[in-house]
């Protein structure tokens, strides 16, 4: 079994860490898989153009460097940590209205995609590349920040188009998503090192990109809260089934909503 985080940003967009620093951060904490998913903003809208000018978005010019650095870091991560690093991006459609805004995480993709099209076309393009499409933080993120509700507002039409919907982003569980039968995933949306403390996925498949993508498609995973400050206690968590029992899809998640609860159980 290993922990995995499929929504991670680097300094290719608005993340603070470089890709090698991200790899070392997760590798040192014993993760088995991560996906680097920097923002890829719309090239037409004012917000998207501004983001690209400010260096907060992947562009056709930076994407080849991005892919090469991910590929070389994936090799290093495997040799040093036995950790799989997947390429990806977060298609970012930011409008003034939260209800017209959507973020779509693509993992396992290696072709640049313009984020300007219709959501349904974008998601299908991701799948056509053999990638996984994830509805990123589709509901209120429990933080004062830009919200993206378009995917949630249209979940009935889009439910079969996505491979997974984020049931947790950072330290917060989204009850609205948890209650549904939608396929789920839990990610940190890491921009800063402290965001490592967040909900993660626990997988038991082979540490291989295809096996990992298949595990997400088949929903063969559980979710755990990972506290980076008490990372040393992680061994204890694994040692005692009682201390960090994972919640299954929509089952016992409520008892793990509190970070302190996991912490105290681990200590106890």
């Amino acid at each position, binding site marked *: 079994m290993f922990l995995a985080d499929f929504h991670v940003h*680097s*300094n*290719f967009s608005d993340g603070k*860490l*470089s*890709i*090698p*620093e991200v790899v070392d951060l997760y590798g040192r904490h014993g993760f088995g898989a991560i996906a680097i998913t920097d923002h890829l903003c719309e090239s037409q809208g004012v917000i998207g153009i501004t983001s*690209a*000018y*400010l260096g907060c978005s992947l*562009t*056709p*010019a*930076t994407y*080849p*460097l*991005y892919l*090469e*650095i991910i590929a*070389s*870091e994936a090799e290093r991560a495997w040799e040093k940590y036995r950790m799989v690093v997947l390429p990806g991006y977060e298609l970012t459609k930011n409008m003034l209205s939260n209800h017209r805004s959507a973020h779509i995480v693509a993992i396992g993709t290696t072709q640049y995609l313009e984020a300007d099209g219709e959501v349904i076309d974008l998601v299908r393009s991701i799948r056509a590349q053999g990638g996984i499409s994830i509805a990123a933080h589709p509901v209120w993120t429990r933080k004062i920040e830009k919200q993206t509700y378009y995917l949630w507002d249209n979940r009935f039409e889009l439910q079969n188009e996505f491979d997974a919907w984020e049931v947790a982003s950072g330290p917060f569980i989204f009850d609205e998503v948890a209650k549904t039968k939608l396929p789920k995933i839990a990610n940190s949306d890491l921009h800063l090192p402290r965001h490592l403390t967040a909900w993660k996925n626990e997988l038991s498949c082979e540490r291989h990109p295809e096996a990992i993508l298949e595990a997400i498609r088949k929903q063969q995973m559980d979710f755990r809260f990972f506290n980076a400050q008490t990372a040393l206690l992680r061994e204890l968590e694994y040692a005692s089934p009682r201390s960090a029992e994972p919640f299954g899809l929509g089952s016992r998640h409520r008892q793990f909503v509190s970070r302190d609860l996991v912490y105290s159980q681990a200590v106890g």
Partner: protein
Amino acid sequence: MKPLKGADEGLEENLRSFFLQTHPDYELLFCVADWDDPAVPIVENLIRQFPLVSAKLLQGLAPEKLNPKVQNMLPAYAAARHDLLLISDSNTRVPSDYLEQMNRLMGEGVGAVSSIVAGRNARGLGAWLDAAYLNTAVARWMALANVFSHPCLSGKAMLLRRSVMRRFGGLKNLSRYIAEDYMAGQAVRHLGLTVDITQAPIDQHLGECSFTAFWRRHVRWGRIRRAQSPPGFFIEPFFNVWTSGLCGAFAVSALTGFSAPLFFGTHFTLWAAADAWVNHRLLGEWDVRHFLAWFARELLALPQWIHTALGQSVYWRGARIRLLEGGLVAETP
């Protein structure tokens, strides 16, 4: 690695300075696009004169709608024996300890080392204007970028590790960009490494240069900067002594009633003095012609910027290259 194209004035002396390096173990790889290049006999002659220096002359790859300078260097990149690679333009002339200076800076966490260029031996109006630009604005911005840890690599001289370059796809991955030096700096930053610059500048032998050649070169550089970073390009006029001074004088006068001519005079004097000091630091000499060239270049900066803003194509090494967003190359026939 020395990409060559033609036999510019002073080429032999420029190249000779690399044969005279005190570094105990280095090799020189000269790259030409074709064997008819006038630089070939000059290089062959130097190789014969310095049999103890490991040096080779190699033919580069065809541009193939990619950056011709990078394409020219690809065989040399493949043939290089060492991990540390210095890419250096043919018009630079360096002191004998230059490789050692650069090598010393390539420490832990440093991904690349570059140098500020001092324009020397100007002859002709274009060359003086060039010198004024290199010895004030370019030097100032490069030093400032270094102070703020912003990666600023100059293609005139950049030292990189092959092991680091491999991590972003090697030199070949840079051939899709018109400004390979800028993108190399960006790649180094994305790897979490820094760029350092040497204390001492290196010399660029300017020689004879017409006003037209100066104008075209700077329009090309401007369009490259615009393609790489449009916001930076659009605020460039405000970093010109005339534009900033006039805007400042008008604003201060309107807001506070302070004398606009007095404000402009003070601004102009301080700016000119600062640039004269930078120029002197680089060249170690005072010459009134530097001031006159600086004055003219500052006057020309705004019209040149307007000309630059009106197009997207550049002429480089006989080819018209259309620049795409981010400085990607799209050659047009």
